[in-house]
């Protein structure tokens, strides 16, 4: 099992349970020592990020290292999430890499995503093993091979 510094948790944010299920499998198969948290709405994801990083309140789980974010969600969508995420206190965002995931074939979405410094990268669904391993390697430091 590989272990990365500060990569303790992968947050899967998608309203579709089956997509989260598949993505959990992919992350599990990557042989990386990391917790996986599935969340089905952008609102809950924001709550998770703000709570888990708060020193005064007990953290419900490990701090997210990578957030895989769906664009098309009911109510608050991926873009709305980013707008709220922007406003978060720096300590909640420290060491978090947001990856946007989409089924959209619209190049405007990729363009739009690249205009936000909060979005590390933009990927087509479904997530695959190689893409996940690359993101871990690119943004986190290996502690143990």
């Amino acid at each position: 099992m590989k272990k990365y510094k500060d990569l303790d948790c992968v947050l899967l944010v998608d309203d579709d349970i089956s997509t989260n299920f598949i993505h959990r499998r992919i992350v599990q198969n990557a042989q990386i020592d990391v917790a996986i948290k599935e969340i089905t709405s952008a609102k809950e994801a924001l709550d998770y990020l703000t709570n888990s990083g708060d020193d005064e309140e007990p953290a419900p789980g490990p701090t997210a290292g990578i957030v895989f974010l769906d664009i098309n969600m009911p109510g608050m969508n991926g873009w709305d999430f980013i707008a709220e995420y922007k406003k978060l206190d720096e300590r909640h965002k420290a060491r978090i890499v947001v990856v946007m995931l989409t089924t959209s074939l619209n190049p405007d979405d990729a363009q739009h995503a690249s205009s936000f410094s909060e979005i590390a990268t933009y990927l087509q669904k479904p997530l695959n093993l190689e893409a996940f391993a690359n993101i871990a390697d690119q943004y986190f430091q290996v502690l143990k091979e």
Partner: protein
Amino acid sequence: MLEVIDDYTILLLDAQGNIKNWNKEAEKIIGYQADEIIGRNFSIFYFEDNRMAKFPELLIEEARRKGRAQHEGWRVRKNGELYWAFVTISAIYDAGNVVVGFSNFVRDLTAKRQLEKTTEEYARELEIKNKELEQFVYIASHDLQEPLLTVKNFVELFKDEYKDVFDDNAKLYLQFIDRSTERMRNLLKGLLDYARLGGQQAKALVDCNALMDSLQNDLYSSISTAGALIHYQNLPIVYGFETALRQLFQNLLSNALKFKRPEVVPQIYISVAGRDNFWHFEFRDNGIGIDERYKEKVFIMFQRLHNVTDYEGYGIGLSHCKKIVELHGGNIEVESIVDEGSTFKFSIKV
């Protein structure tokens, strides 16, 4: 007598159709100077193939017989340019009631004609685009159903023939596939229904009271399950597409029942006011309400505000409502306060 009004001119012709006078406005419209045109036959204004077909002669003949002949069409200016003319040729009689000549009233309608043509072209383009869109939606919803159906069929076969060898994991996977295909089937159906809304039907007088009465019957079980109270009286008779209106009312009613607050008796008030040639309807509920920032989004196809696990649905109903209201010349909008209720307001042309 030979005064000029705007782009009109009145010319005098002799009994054979030769031009007897010429004026400034005629010069402006048709282009000739008086000395080059007086005495020539008026057929010079016509296209060559019109002349070959004896069209000017036929007009003169008609005016001679009936006293008057009218025609609208392209003519040629001196410089070869075309103008759209509206022409009235009237016979002039002598004391013995013999036709001695004609007055030729010419109106230059080129600008109007071009505007009409642009509008016509625009309308035609719009019609083509609409057809394309309809076709597109039809293909999307119909042809995409077929491979989907194949997936569904084979999943059924799998379940039937291999159920004994499946472990729990395999069963879970099949459940995911099942749910997704079912969801897609419904999304595609919604798309197809949307394209077809109000399509083939003729408008008729629809009694909204009777409509609501019968809807209450249809929705009896969901109304009584929710314990909802529905209030309306003196709803109007409107002129519209009955099936579509029924769907509009049904969607708004079902939404009010579905998005009710827990522990609160759902109250639905339907009221109408007639003003400015529109019926202004209001469907007011005391449900969960809609966040201000999603007020527009709710009317967009497939847009949902809640997770499927919280509220079932496909994000179709209100987009249909919007299209139905627009088919009736009106608008739909929502006013809402979260945790207090929503009021859907729509208008229908009288």
